[in-house]
């Protein structure tokens, strides 16, 4: 079977590892390939809020592990992709809680993480942390750089940070609802693209 990149060009020092937890979930048809791409983009989004030792793949695989092992149970009526996305978000929050306790090493963190109740869509107010604040400022700038020439996108991003509703955003920036909706679609497309981009091998 052909691939879309040439594995022969991998450096000899790198060895492929098969069958990650996400790969096993695909095998048992818990998710589809499109689901995995969506979750990859969401994992990359959440990983923007974490320091370097933890990357998007760690978040993604840990979420799949918890679901496959049953330590996180999917509530009835919640789609599996939405559930996995929420598990990733909660893992991120747990990471920061652990950091505040001084446990900064990921292996230790992963061994100690407990089980939280599923609370879909709940956004907790992050506790003040100089490191987290620095990452937040840098990453909002990085996201804005994706829309260098798109003023309306930058306005909407600013409004989303403020927690403004679409109506408030349109009023603040004298933007029509049509412009708002089309700009949100541009933002979504750009963020999916950023989330699916290929690493430089």
């Amino acid at each position, binding site marked *: 079977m052909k*691939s*879309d*990149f040439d594995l022969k060009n991998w450096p000899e*020092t*790198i*060895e*492929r*590892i*098969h*069958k*990650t*937890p996400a*790969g*096993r979930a695909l095998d048992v048809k818990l998710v589809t390939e*499109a689901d*995995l*791409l*969506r979750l*990859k*983009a969401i994992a990359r*989004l*959440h990983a923007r809020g974490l320091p370097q030792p933890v*990357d998007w*793949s*760690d*978040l*993604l*695989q*840990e979420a*799949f*592990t*918890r679901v*496959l092992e049953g330590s996180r149970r999917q509530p009835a009526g919640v789609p599996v992709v*939405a559930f996995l996305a929420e598990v990733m*978000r909660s893992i991120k929050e747990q990471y920061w809680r652990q950091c505040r306790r001084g446990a900064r090493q*990921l*292996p230790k963190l992963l*061994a100690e993480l407990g089980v939280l109740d599923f609370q879909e869509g709940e*956004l907790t*107010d*992050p506790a*003040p*942390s100089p490191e987290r604040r620095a*990452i937040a400022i840098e990453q909002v700038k*990085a996201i804005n750089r*994706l829309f260098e020439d798109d003023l309306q996108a930058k306005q909407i991003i600013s409004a*989303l940070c*403020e*927690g403004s509703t679409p109506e408030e955003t349109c009023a*603040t920036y004298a933007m029509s609802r049509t412009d708002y909706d089309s700009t*949100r679609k541009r933002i979504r*497309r750009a963020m*999916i693209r*950023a*989330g*699916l*981009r*290929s*690493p*430089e091998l």
Partner: protein
Amino acid sequence: MTTTRPELGFERLLAALGRDMLDASDEEILAVANELGQKPGMKGSIALLGVTFAWRLKDQPKGSARPTKEASSGAGATGRSRRRPKGDAPSSD
């Protein structure tokens, strides 16, 4: 507008963008992958690097990383010894 603490504002932004991604159709996701030259249906597609398969450094110096257990249960295994390819940092665009 009020001034929001950066970390709270950032979390609000991530939550909104995450919801957008959940709302996107499969067709849109696959279309973006296609634009990037990725073919996720193909075996070993780069689109699924770090997702269905990962990587690690061979012959790592002793103590530099833990050996990876293939098919181990989680990121604690796949993530610890895996190395991120150049340019694949989560903070980059």
